[in-house]
């Protein structure tokens, strides 16, 4: 029996592909957002509101990841923005190689912001770097305030956490406060924005923050 030392990150192949993606994004001076959440938290609604607010100033395009259908890409195209749908079949996350393949068919030159809307899942996408410069996690009040503690890796790695559906918070606002507290405990460095994509509440703060981030990138 012979022992061969390897000492390698198991996700090395993805890390290398992500590094390549990041290099080409940086060359274009492009801000790339990896948008992640559980199913139904409101990723596409957030994107619609964000694109509407910023599309007069900036060129924005979206890569959509879903197991099936191109319904989300259609919603983005309806706003007049370019969108590319990746159907992952049974895969629970996007990986860096899928993004690299997409970039061959979906040019991102001339863009100011590329959003990658990941598969709705609070677990697997956390482990796969896509080459993004901004990790945004969305969680709705309706999912329950304990989610950051149940899925800590996802929340810990986020640069920004948006708390959506604040209009569905209970009258006292206790569940929203509990959710925000849990986010801050798992990730003290994240920017946190409570929003309601339905009523528009809180969206201005998020949009202003993102506008400044695009402008300084």
């Amino acid at each position: 029996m012979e022992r061969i030392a390897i000492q390698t990150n198991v996700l090395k192949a993805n890390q290398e592909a992500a590094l390549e993606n990041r290099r080409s994004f940086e060359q274009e001076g492009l801000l790339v957002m990896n948008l992640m959440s559980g199913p139904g938290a409101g990723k596409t609604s957030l994107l619609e509101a964000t694109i509407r607010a910023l599309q007069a100033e900036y060129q924005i395009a979206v890569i959509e990841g879903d197991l099936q259908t191109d319904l989300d890409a259609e919603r983005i195209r309806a706003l007049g923005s370019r969108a590319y749908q990746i159907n992952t079949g049974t895969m629970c996350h996007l990986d860096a190689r899928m993004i690299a393949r997409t970039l061959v068919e979906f040019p991102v030159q001339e863009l100011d912001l590329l959003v990658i809307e990941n598969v709705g899942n609070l677990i697997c996408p956390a482990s796969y770097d896509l080459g993004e410069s901004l990790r945004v996690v969305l969680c709705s009040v309706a999912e329950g305030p304990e989610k950051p503690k149940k899925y800590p890796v996802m929340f810990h790695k986020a640069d920004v956490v948006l708390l959506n559906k604040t209009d569905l918070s209970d009258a006292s606002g206790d569940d929203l406060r509990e959710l925000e507290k849990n986010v801050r405990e798992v990730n003290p460095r994240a920017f946190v924005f409570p929003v309601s994509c339905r009523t528009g509440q809180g969206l201005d703060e998020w949009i202003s923050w993102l506008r400044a981030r695009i402008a300084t990138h």
Partner: protein
Amino acid sequence: MHEISVAINIVEIAEASAQRNGTGQIQLIKIRLGEFTTIVQEALEFAFEIARQETLAAHARLEIEIVPMLVECLCCGAIPNPVRDIVLLCPNCGLQLQIVGGEEIQLEYIEVG
């Protein structure tokens, strides 16, 4: 359930290494798996049973060492382990705790022959 893609990565890296060394069957694959990852040990073991089929690792055993989550405060030097309820705020000075262990998914070595 992305353990299947992780298991396939493990087998691919192990096979490539065995081939580079011109050796035959892989008998054992040793990995270190952090507590603070998205990988579940039982799910990975199950996925490995599938991923190893018809490879040089077809008869290999997967040995998983669980690495506990370790934190320290970069500000005041406190080492408040174990972390309770995943509160990553220093109980001493209130600033952010740094995770210094438990995030690894590392292939350590293989045994061949």
